[in-house]
């Protein structure tokens, strides 16, 4: 089992969700985050004072998938989230030790 963490532009969430659902992904967690990679922030003005905002709002998606699904999901995310400019985001993959369904204590890939 693999955890897919994708940090994407907030405006791409709907497109990515739809693309993932079309590949058969059945569960996801969506978190509002702030952060930056190499993307510069922006400046805001309040009462004549300049504030640099370098933590930019992003969306983080977390999916735990059977290994066989991972590449399809990654391709779907990239297809829907890519704009070609800096700030598109990143995807991280990591191994998951186990998954447990709370409702009936099922374990392993069938719990996904």
């Amino acid at each position, binding site marked *: 089992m693999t955890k897919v963490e994708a940090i994407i532009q907030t405006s791409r969430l709907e497109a990515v969700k739809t693309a993932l659902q079309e590949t058969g992904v059945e569960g996801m967690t969506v978190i509002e985050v702030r952060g930056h990679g190499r993307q510069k922030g922006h400046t*805001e*003005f*309040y*009462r*004549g*004072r*300049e504030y640099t905002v370098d933590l930019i709002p992003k969306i983080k998606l977390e999916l735990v998938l059977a290994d066989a699904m991972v590449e399809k999901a990654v391709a779907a995310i990239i297809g829907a989230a890519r704009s070609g400019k800096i700030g598109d985001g990143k995807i991280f993959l990591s191994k998951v030790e186990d998954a447990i369904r709370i409702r009936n204590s099922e374990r392993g890939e069938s719990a996904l």
Partner: protein
Amino acid sequence: MGMRLVFWLTLVLASFCPPLLAQTAAPISPATTGLAPADAARIAKLEQQVAEAHSAGDNAWMLTSAALVLMMTGPGLALFYGGLVRKKNVLATMVQSFAMMALVTILWAFLGYSLAFGPGNSFIGGLHNWLLHGVSLQPDPDYAPTIPAQTYMVYQLMFAIITPGLITGAFAERMKFSAMLAFMILWSIFVYDPMAHMVWGKGGLLNAALGGKFPCLDFAGGTVVHVTSGVSALVCALYLGKRVGYPRDAMPPHSVVLSFIGACMLWVGWFGFNAGSALSAGSLATSAFVATHFGAAAAVIGWVAAEWIRNGKPTVLGAISGAVAGLVAITPAAGFVGVPAAMCIGLLAGAFCFWMVAKVKAKFGYDDSLDAFGVHGAGGTLGALLTGIFAASVINPIFKDAQGNVLPSGLLEGNARQLLNQFVGVAIAWVLAIVGTLVILKVVDLTIGLRVSEEDEVQGLDLSQHGEEGYAFDVTA
């Protein structure tokens, strides 16, 4: 049938005629007109009713104005300031204004009204009206001859409430709640009441309407409200020192949305503040209402233009701040100037206050957190001085000679001396504010301590002072 028609028609017409007769000014008596006593009595009664109708109009407007001015404090000022602070201090900031609504009110009944408006000397009233003794439903002819004295009293109370509320902007996010309450009680008694007495009270040194020695033209409280609070704010900001992390840490407003709503309420409420200061529902109220509105609009343009040019983008916070600056500046001038002068005053105030807030504050490095000095102190001072320039007797014939001829009001009309009187009024406000505030701060600091601990400040005043959170948008349902 015809006769009955004539009879009813005559009766109906006759019932409409007397009001027309009652519009004559001179009282009618049997001796002067040869009318029968019964008719003279009827006409005298009708004259009384006309006077009562006139009073009813004035009283309706004045009670409405009082409500509008209270709304300026709650929620106008509370929202305006509340939105400008960080989220962790929103409630504490709003309750500072609200506390004035309760505290100053009670103080007014016991002491405040009497010290400000009771008979005394040129600087302060006395205790004659302690617990509002003697303030009845009959008019006090010195102050407002057509409305009950209690209406005047409660209208003035709303001014006494909002003035200390303005100061809270200077020490936002770092003053102890208990210390603030103590400070405000003392400030209201020792700074506000004397200033109000000098400008508006019977025998006041600066009272233009009641023959003060240095008649200062201050229609709705440019000096009494804005200069005193604004300058006191600066003193507080300097005495208390900067917020932890200022100016290095970013402390942008947590909700310009709240500030926007508050500012719009201030603009609307200000019609009560300025036009209500006419103390009647007549044409002077109209004049003040109109001048107020055009002044505010011009100031928005002044601030926004200055900001757009300097920073490249017009901000919403700038626009609403501009409006407030214009309203502050037009406050002393409202009942003395026409529309062109009002727009001049507004435009200048917008640009000037932007400069004070954006450049001067940064240059000197004081942490006047919500720009109480930059907008109220500076804007009020500018407005009071411009009033000396632009005041026109054609709008408001406030100065008359012994024969009753109207004298010029301001500089542009030929009365250069008035600018000097304005300076005197402004200078007295500055001195009273500085000295009074310093003494009071020292007293409160030595007894209670003014500032919260650094831990409490970092945690936020909502939690540390009040045990509350402004926004409990929890994940749990």
